[in-house]
């Protein structure tokens, strides 16, 4: 049998969960630094468009995020050029691919359409 003391601790935990679930139900968010970081485009976000052998930096990170999201998958990868890029978003056999660095990829993941 569970002792009264353990049950009391479980009750407190459940009460906290109930409060959080209530808050979530009524969309009452608790401000978090994590989200605040990505409300603006990080200064060193990089998006590179790759078509065939050509690589072009695309300045519009927002549009780049959307186009990346439209691809079949995004995965970690080493780019074939000298730049710190960590993710590639592509659709098999599609001519256009998108290389994103960590900052750009993290920013993209915060977007409502991701």
């Amino acid at each position, binding site marked *: 049998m569970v002792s*009264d003391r353990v*049950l*009391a601790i*479980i*009750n407190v935990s*459940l*009460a906290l*969960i*109930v409060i959080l*679930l*209530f808050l*979530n*139900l009524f*969309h009452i968010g608790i401000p978090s630094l994590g989200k605040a970081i990505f409300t*603006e*485009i990080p*200064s060193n*976000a*990089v*998006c590179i*468009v790759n*078509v065939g052998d*050509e690589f*072009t*930096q*695309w*300045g*519009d*990170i*927002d*549009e780049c995020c*959307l*186009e990346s*999201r*439209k*691809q*079949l998958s995004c995965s970690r990868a080493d780019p074939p050029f000298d730049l710190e890029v960590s993710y590639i978003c592509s*659709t*098999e*056999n*599609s*001519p*256009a691919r998108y290389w994103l660095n960590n900052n750009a990829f993290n920013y993209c993941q915060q*977007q*409502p*359409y*991701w």
Partner: protein
Amino acid sequence: MKYKKKRWTNTERVFVVLLILTLILIVINVAQSFGWLIPEQPTLRIIDNTIDLDSLSLDQKIAQMLIVIGDRRLIVPWKNMQVGGIHIYALPTEHIINNTIIDFQYGMPIPLFVSADLEGCFNPFAKFKNFTTNAEVDRIGTAFEKGFFEGAYLKQLGINLNFAPVVDLDDQIWKCRSFPGDEKKISELAESYILGLQAQEVTGNIKHYPGKTLVAKDPHKFVVYENISEKDIYPYHYLLERGDVKTIMVSHIITNGAVDSKGVPSVVSPTLIKEIKDKFPSTIIISDEIHMLGLKDFYTSLDEMYVGVFKAGNDIILNFDRDPNEVYRMIQVIKDAVIRGVIQEEQIDDSVERILQLKGFNVVR
């Protein structure tokens, strides 16, 4: 032998109550996150392919103006809201695409627009079907064939609206999204492409008005100003005047020059959109996806942005937000703006009438 009935302590009673409450709240939260709590709109009566616009509620009219993301997990809320269309991203197999579209269309009183971006050198279906890029097309016959075969393929998948062709000039980034040549050549090739596409009953769309979206920008300036020349808008005017193209997509760029968005992003510029509507009244105006920082940063809240996009005169709004509750909230925000007179219901009716006509219905008021 007599059993002594066990009496529950207060702690045990509290535990049971809290446990039940937690379980109930988990179920409600999950249902809410999937949008299952969004109320279902009433079924429409469509007689002889004719829709009486007054039979649609304001919610239904606003929802018809939305194209949302075609994610299978969101099938219930989108159907409950009776949205106007869904957009298909790349998916792993043709079978999944086909089934997704069939499931979405099943039981919808007004069929959905099903859109995709098979354009230039974007091919969400490249895993199973290859098409030439626009850069490889330099003859009118080839452009028609490209449109015709792409249209046939899209139709087979169940897609009826293709956000193509791109008719912006000077593709500095991809070098394959636009057709090659000067503005006149691009216009002629785009026209042939659209004719081919629409011969398969897939609606084409010219984008991104008023141009200059294919140029590399400073990554840290998300509010972009561009000077638009007569050359930039030539393809749009050429194609709209010929009357073959039914829809046009407007970008988020702030423009001056031949087209002046008056200091606001084109997509929320009433002046710019009114100009298109005055010159080409039957054209359906589609906003580019609205969750772009260049647009959002123009407003202090999402609600203001939502109202801005509708009030400017866009007929169809692309909102790819994956949260159905937020999309539903957007509908309520617009509904409230219409009730308060901030947006005229007449304007909503005009847009919905044109959408329904493009979907093949007769509309009466």
